[in-house]
């Protein structure tokens, strides 16, 4: 591709089309937008996402793909693809830069012949392949406010990428109609300014064209939003939490959703209050949830153990970020798993569920509520920054795939037939009966002290042993209730990948790359991480020569857990690890697998 000289002002061209180059057809495109906070980078991403979806493409957007915590830099990216990709493309074709800093930061993420489109009213871009338009000046002069530069830039991109004109405009109409007629008119005007500027420059016109896709009727959501929706339909009605990135949106969505359903959301004074409020609400009989991230999780740990011993079912969402301490609040990691699996002092049961896609966040959120209430223990819904905050297209959420079951709740008739109601009754199933406080005719005692079946504090050694077995037994008895894995790739592949959470996106992309290279590989997407799903992992591991456990941490935490539970497979397990705060790009998974396969004599 040729490199046009830097343009600092729109260059009128004589006859449109005369200097056109043949456009490159893209069926997988990635655009990064960078600038200062307030430049409206997210608006551009939103507009582009809407446009690509109208073209039947899968869309994946992520915020802050580049930024270190510094200054007011903000960036975001959008990927559109004919294939269902839930991962960031390894190299972007286009960077829209509102300042030079964005270019410096984005460089490693850009394709060798990527184009930088920049706002020439603000700066002069320093990059091999650039195209500048004075978006802010044009918007300030013709729309009245420079901020409309973002919509103008969208207009320019629409020309660069050969967008359909009517659809481009429709996107603006849909996005801004609710903001009132004036806002809509200004944005339409800004769109035209951007388009016109680009159309006057032959180097800008139809540089690329975008292939149509077949993915229609999809919805675009983040994992946090999907989880919040799952909590609503799963019967969650109480939430308490303390703001922390990247978990806060769950609280914010529930503040919107819960009030119509007799639900209550409280922002606690800290995580100690939040987890204990959740415990109190669960005790009262509500399905109760909190969400947090690393530092908050540490503070909640005492409460989570208390819930397990008092046998109160609660759901804790951990949206993992870079830790420990304040770490990198906006960055991606999967490093809480080891802590969660061995959580807290003493020994107690808990389940750790891990959704592998945005959609799965919805279904597993509802499942988590059922499991917590039935087994009366803490269920951790383990998310990670990328899954929590990146938006992906997926099928519409299906209410018919959600069930709300309350098998331990006694009806008044069942209760009337009992001779005794013991909150901690020892039963063969490991499950004790439940009625909430306020049920006529019965009272209960619920405690985190060791207790007998009645809930009386007890230090009797025989009782202690029985109660330990009752609680810990749930880890075995509940196995068939826990969400099973998902399998991808050819069943007869001899190379396996194991992953969880947002790594599923890049892993699935890597499977396609590997297939093209003639390396068949298959993927075990774990959805229950603890107890370690031995029953399904063992046959998977038996069927491969090597299994790569892919995770975002330094020590290979999931691989260690698997080794701990299934030492026989020690030699088959290899780790692919990344702990720089960025999520995997497909090549980072393809390379180690390729190396291992070609280096292994079989």
């Amino acid at each position, binding site marked *: 591709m040729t490199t046009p000289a830097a343009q600092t002002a729109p260059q009128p061209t004589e006859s449109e089309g005369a200097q056109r180059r043949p456009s490159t057809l893209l069926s997988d495109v990635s655009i990064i937008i960078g600038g200062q906070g307030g430049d409206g980078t997210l608006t551009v991403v939103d507009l582009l996402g809407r446009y690509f979806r109208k073209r039947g493409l899968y869309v994946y957007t992520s915020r802050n793909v580049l930024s270190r915590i510094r200054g007011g830099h903000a960036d975001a990216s959008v990927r559109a693809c004919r294939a269902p990709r839930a991962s960031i493309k390894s190299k972007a074709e286009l960077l829209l830069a509102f300042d030079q800093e964005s270019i410096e930061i984005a460089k490693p993420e850009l394709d060798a012949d990527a184009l930088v489109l920049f706002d020439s009213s603000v700066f002069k871009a320093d990059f091999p392949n650039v195209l500048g338009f004075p978006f802010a000046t044009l918007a300030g002069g013709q729309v009245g406010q420079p901020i409309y530069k973002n919509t103008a830039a969208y207009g320019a991109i629409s020309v660069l990428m050969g967008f359909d004109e009517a659809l481009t405009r429709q996107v603006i109409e849909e996005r801004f109609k609710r903001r009132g007629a004036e806002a809509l008119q200004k944005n339409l005007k800004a769109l035209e300014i951007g388009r016109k500027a680009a159309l006057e420059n032959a180097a800008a016109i139809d540089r690329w064209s975008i292939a149509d896709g077949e993915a229609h009727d999809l919805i675009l959501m983040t994992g946090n939003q999907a989880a919040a929706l799952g909590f609503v339909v799963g019967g969650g009605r109480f939430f308490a939490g303390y703001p922390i990135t990247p978990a806060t949106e769950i609280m914010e969505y529930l503040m919107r959703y819960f009030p119509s359903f007799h639900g209550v959301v409280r922002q606690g004074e800290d995580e100690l209050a939040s987890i204990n409020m959740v415990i109190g609400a669960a005790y009262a009989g509500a399905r109760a949830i909190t969400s947090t991230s690393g530092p908050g999780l540490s503070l909640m740990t005492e409460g989570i153990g208390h819930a397990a011993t008092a046998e109160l079912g609660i759901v804790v969402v951990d949206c993992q970020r870079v830790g420990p301490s304040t770490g990198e609040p906006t960055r991606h990691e999967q490093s809480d798993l080891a802590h969660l699996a061995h959580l807290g002092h003493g020994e107690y049961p808990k389940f750790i569920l891990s959704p592998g896609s945005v959609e799965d966040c919805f279904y597993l959120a509802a499942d988590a509520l059922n499991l917590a209430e039935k087994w009366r223990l803490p269920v951790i819904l383990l998310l990670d920054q990328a899954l929590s905050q990146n938006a992906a297209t997926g099928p*519409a959420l299906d209410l018919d795939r959600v069930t709300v079951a309350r098998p331990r709740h006694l009806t008044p008739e069942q209760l009337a037939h009992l001779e005794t109601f013991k909150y901690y009754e020892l039963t063969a199933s490991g499950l004790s009966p439940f009625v909430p406080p306020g049920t006529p005719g019965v009272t209960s005692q619920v405690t985190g002290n060791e207790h007998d079946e009645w809930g009386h504090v007890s230090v009797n050694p025989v009782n202690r042993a029985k109660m330990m077995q009752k609680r810990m037994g749930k880890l075995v008895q509940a196995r068939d209730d826990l969400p099973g894995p998902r399998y991808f790739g050819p069943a007869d592949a001899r190379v396996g990948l194991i992953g969880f959470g947002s790594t599923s996106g890049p892993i699935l992309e890597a499977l396609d790359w590997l297939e093209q290279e003639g390396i068949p590989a298959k993927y075990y997407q774990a959805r229950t991480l603890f107890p370690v799903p031995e029953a399904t992992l063992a046959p998977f591991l038996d069927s491969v020569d090597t299994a790569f456990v892919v995770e975002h941490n330094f020590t290979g935490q999931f691989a260690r857990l698997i080794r701990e539970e299934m030492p026989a497979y020690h030699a088959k397990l290899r780790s692919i690890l990344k702990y720089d705060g960025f999520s995997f790009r497909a090549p980072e998974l393809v390379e180690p697998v390729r190396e291992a396969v070609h280096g292994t004599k079989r």
Partner: protein
Amino acid sequence: MVQSVKPTASTWCPGCGDFGVLAAAKKALVELKIPPHEAVLVGGIGCSGGIHNFLEINGLHALHGRLLAQAVAVKLANPKLTVIAAGGDGDGYAIGMGHFMHAFKKNVSILYLVMNNETYGLTKGQASPTSRVGYEGNVEQPFDAILTALSIPSGAYLARTFSGDPKTMTAVLSEAIQFNRDHRGYAFVEDLSPCVTYNDTFKEWREKVVNVEKLPGYDPTDRSAVFRLCLETMRDGKIPIGVMHRPPRVDGADANPLELKLLPDHVGPAEADIGIEANRVAYQKLLQSVA
């Protein structure tokens, strides 16, 4: 009738001030005719917090310092329950101090009863936040919960009682619980409850307590008047007790306690019908709102 858990015999040292609280609480619950299943006592960790085991009501034994957070949520999850949080001075004013302050702000209609013995009874007599200078090497200024509570803008019912005067205590607890049951907001009562084993102050406190209600200028609706009376009483080396704030009835949604602000129809999260069928139409609408 189905048999459920029965109260156990108390495990307190003979003569412990907490017995007075237990007796007064029992009486108040009977006086108010509250059926056992409708009442929840959330106990702290400490000698005092064990009180939930000795009453014939529902008991929730919280973590050390976390009883208020749990109690607030019990009430918000089911506003029909009568909820009492009860624990020690260490539980409430040391490890639980954050929740202590925020409870006034939250204004949920629950009673918080602190049994203040100016020591850590259960861990065998270390200095607590209310310990006087010199007790077990304490060199820090003692904390005064009533002065603090009076200084926080809130419509809470406030009182201090003394275990040596169970009659007054019963009256105060009855009034406070009724205040909660009428959804008039938060009630905080500190009871001076001597630890006869590690800090036996019965005799001293009996001599020093002064009921502010009997002092000239007392007006339970006037915080500043009561605050001044407390300071004057303390300046004389005495300990003020009595009803410290009896807020007047205020109408209007702003005056509502949190449970009514959040749940105007009194149906809480614990009572909501969470079946899919019962909510299908609203759920479909919600899911369709995501595009």
